[in-house]
């Protein structure tokens, strides 16, 4: 579904992605972790070309993202992206937020989109919040609206960029629960997160990045109990002891 071959990216002099080779299959759930500045956000932002890559090939759903001729609208419609800061449109209700892209990009009819939007908001536990504005919702609720907004496009892939990092602790679980259900339904997901409980429960593989490189990829069991690299051990000792 997603294949990186020798992908390199620079921000000016900073080499943020170094020779990335990675393949994520359909239906797979992969968790990406690593210290801040390691390039994990950049890695997933390249997948829907929120960032350009300078070298290598990145094939998503059979399309070469790097190729300028590729129809990015079509590709992006297939990829849901969830941001750390939710990024809801504050002048629209929850329902208006989730049906904007379906009606404008997918050209879905208004009443059909309306029905889909209500169903999807219900699915993330916000059936009673359709007419609320983002400012009237808690952080956890806003992030669930953002997930519903992604799902309304019926995407093949969902990307999550630290979806719970901006949330108060008591709101993290309601968002993770939605994500766990999504994973169990067979969605292809790449999740940048430090929620190791979530990684243990649903990830097929965990990817650890440092300084723009993939240091280690392993199934959760192996990743937590016998990490191969010293760097991974150090990282795990820091985030798991508390």
């Amino acid at each position, binding site marked *: 579904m997603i294949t990186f071959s020798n992908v390199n990216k620079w921000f000016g002099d900073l080499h943020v992605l170094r020779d990335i080779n990675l393949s994520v299959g359909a239906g797979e759930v992969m968790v990406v972790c690593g210290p801040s500045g390691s390039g994990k956000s950049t890695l997933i932002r390249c997948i*829907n070309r*929120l960032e350009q890559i300078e070298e290598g090939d990145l094939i998503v759903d059979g399309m070469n993202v790097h190729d300028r001729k590729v129809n*990015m*609208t*079509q590709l*992006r*419609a297939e*990829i*849901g*992206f969830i*941001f750390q*800061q939710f*990024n*809801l*449109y*504050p*002048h629209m209700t929850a329902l208006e937020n989730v049906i*904007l*892209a379906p009606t*404008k*990009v997918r050209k879905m009819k208004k009443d059909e989109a309306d029905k889909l939007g209500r169903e999807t908001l219900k699915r993330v536990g916000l059936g009673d919040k359709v007419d609320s*504005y983002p*400012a*009237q919702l808690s952080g956890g609720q806003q992030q669930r609206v*953002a997930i519903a*907004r*992604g799902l309304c*496009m019926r995407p093949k892939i969902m990307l999550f960029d630290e979806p719970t990092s901006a949330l108060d602790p008591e709101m993290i679980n309601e968002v993770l629960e939605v994500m766990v259900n999504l994973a169990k339904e067979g969605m292809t997901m790449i999740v940048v997160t430090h929620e190791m409980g979530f990684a243990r429960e649903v990830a097929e593989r965990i990817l650890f990045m440092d300084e723009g490189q993939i240091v280690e990829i392993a199934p959760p069991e192996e990743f937590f109990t016998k990490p191969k690299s010293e760097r991974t051990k150090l990282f795990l000792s820091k985030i798991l002891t508390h």
Partner: protein
Amino acid sequence: MLETFNFRVILEYMPLYFKCFSATLWLSGAGLIGALLVGTVACAMRLSQSRIVSLIAGVYIESIRSTPLLAQIYFFYFGLPSLGIMFSEEVTGIFALTLNSGAYMAEIIRAGIQSIPHGQIEAGIASGLSYFQRMRYIILPQALGVTILPLLGQGIVLVKDSSLLSLISIMELTRAGQILTSERFMPAEGFLTTAAFYLIIYYILKGFSSWVQKRLIFREAY
């Protein structure tokens, strides 16, 4: 003092004032519409990806904002004809007001657009919305709320600036005051009446502005 203030002469000159009042209204009305158009286009150019296009808009905005309006009016009125470009006084006046106010409006609109957090634009990009769809559905509805009051403020400035057009012999409100003063030697009567008419325009625009503030800006608590 009041014994010497001559109301009768003001009444006598009322037809002239009304004529000039309507001239001020249509000159600034035309200038306002022109400035909104020029400002929108200049702002779009300023924000363009193309460096050249952005630079052209930047030079226009900066050169207008860094020079006095009166010098600009004189340039258009005396300078352009000397280069062989001739317009009537009214057209020259509207042209000067439009270009002057357009530069300020471009910056107001730019501030409004740039006040929209970048994350929302990325969210739009990520869901496949085109540049124009993002402008239409995400950026402009919010930018309008932020910019409408400063734009109306700039509109009020434009109306007051139109008094400078009296210096290129356009018949407008300030010119009416000058005429009364020079014909009857009554500057107090002449310019107070002029000021009173500007006050009327000001209150109309201010009333519109408060109405907009109550009605159009965000439906939700922000």
